[in-house]
């Protein structure tokens, strides 16, 4: 076993990538910068994947600490980390995968006031939050400062989605039919945005989610239900979209909204790229 950090050379850690990825692409990854908002079920696995791909600079934005109910799916969560900062755990894990990686952590929630400052100086942003208002803030800010942003969804029982936005693409709030496009985020508007998620819970019953659970979610007595395979597949696909943005290979283009990578583990087409007929999606059905 190697006993000096010098032995953990970047090239050796990522030697098995070569063949799928060219050396030039691996260099681009090494210089690549990714910001991940949220280090939970989707963000945690995406962060680990980015580190294992060899991305050189990562910014983790996450305020929470680990709880026992994170353990069913969050790859950064362990009993030994309960009550500890998710952002610090991410930093520790990523450094233990690639000691050369630069990890910046910010233990704050994204707000309209801090978004542009926190999201600048990066090549791509992954929005892995579970809060619909925060998502609007993230994708608005990303478009304004000219950085691509990746959206994800995880919906009971076995559904999910990944879709990317760029400053040139159709905007997030249009593609997902939010009532807030070009409107200020007043308290009333925030309520309208949050109501979309309640309707998603109720709609998920048609796909096999437990009706009692959906009712309890709407009444705020149950958390969002999510199992490890779905959260992890969505996080993986999101990390792969970030990878595409960074390596910029001819013929390997990110899936840009309104095109959507749709996940449904109960369907024969378990993962499929879909284009909406009307040019946008009803977010409550996703």
């Amino acid at each position, binding site marked *: 076993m190697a006993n000096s950090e010098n032995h*953990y050379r970047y090239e050796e*850690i990522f030697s098995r990538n070569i063949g799928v990825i060219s050396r030039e692409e691996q260099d681009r990854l090494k210089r690549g910068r990714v910001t991940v908002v949220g280090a939970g079920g989707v963000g945690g696995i995406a962060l680990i994947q980015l580190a294992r*791909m060899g991305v050189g600079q990562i910014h983790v934005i996450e305020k929470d600490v680990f709880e026992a109910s994170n353990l*069913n799916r969050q*790859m950064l969560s362990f009993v030994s980390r309960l009550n500890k900062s998710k952002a610090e755990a991410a930093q520790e894990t990523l450094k*233990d995968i690639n000691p050369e990686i630069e990890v910046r952590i910010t233990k704050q929630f994204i707000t309209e006031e801090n978004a542009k400052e926190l999201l600048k100086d990066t090549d791509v942003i992954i929005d892995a939050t579970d809060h619909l208002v925060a998502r609007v803030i993230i994708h608005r800010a990303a478009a304004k400062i000219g950085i691509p942003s990746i959206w994800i969804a995880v919906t009971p029982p076995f559904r999910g989605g990944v879709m990317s936005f760029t400053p040139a693409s159709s905007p997030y709030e249009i593609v997902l039919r939010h009532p807030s496009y070009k409107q200020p985020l007043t308290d009333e508007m925030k309520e309208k945005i949050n109501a979309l998620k309640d309707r998603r819970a109720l709609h998920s019953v048609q796909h096999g989610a437990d009706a009692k659970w959906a009712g309890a979610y709407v009444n705020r007595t149950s958390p969002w239900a999510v199992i490890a*395979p779905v959260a992890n597949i969505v996080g993986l696909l999101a990390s792969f979209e970030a990878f595409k943005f960074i390596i910029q290979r001819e013929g390997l283009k990110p899936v840009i909204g309104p095109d959507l990578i749709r996940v449904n583990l109960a369907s024969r087409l378990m993962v499929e790229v879909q284009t909406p007929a009307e040019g946008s999606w009803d977010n409550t059905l996703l």
Partner: protein
Amino acid sequence: MQPFINNPDFYWELVRKNIGVYSKEEQQKLKESKLIIFGLGGVGGVQAILAARMGIGHVTGIDPDEFEISNMNRQMLASVSVLGQAKAKVAEDTVKDINPSISVRFVQTSVDEHNAADLIKNHDVVIEAVDDMPSRVIIHRTARELGIPSVGMSGSPPHRGFVSSFFPDGIHYEDILNLPGKGMKLTNRELRKQIANIKKKRAWYSVEQGAPREWAEAFCSGKAGWIITPVRAMLLATFSFHEAVQILTGQIPMAPAPKAILINLDSEHPVQVKTAPDSGWNYAHL
């Protein structure tokens, strides 16, 4: 935190967010289930973690190897701090840090015709996540003889994968994959060679799918390993693990042979379920 971990409520808090996707009764079944995983590398290592996070009551894990630097690009259990340690030991420590009350048996050994039945008996599902063909055959044959369902997978460059489930009363692993030497002992050296050679054909087919020619040449002469990136390894792990969970909760999985889950991230249908042609799969093309 420590006292809470020993509290019987800890398990139900760990799996709280599974409920809604799975009923309490299904979760109870998972709690009483016994899973065995062969291989604790890029695919099996993730499955061990997912098993603990899903709340499966008992996990057995088998792997002969120790962690090396070039494992770190994809193996979720691999990190700088465990280089040189047995994969079986690291897996055991990790799953216990997710669910301290999980029952485990992790063994540092390879599987062969002599120990397979002893290892597999008394489990509810077998997951095969090894990378050499003769061991794959031994595992699926033995599971079938013992009347236990088994889940198999394989992955090929650049971004392709195959997952299928096998039942004691269903089609044989060796039949659907058109493998030579059905029913013959794998102690026959010539036969082992024939089976191992199929992987060389897969390397050449991968070149047609976009993998580099130099890599296939190096692989066939034993100078290079199979190329595999974290996204493909994780997708294979997650989809095959989902098969195992469907079986354990008493449902029909997505891909009982002759059906299979086919992964190809370079296509419009990145993941889909397909039925094998009447002649079975051409393993060289998977």
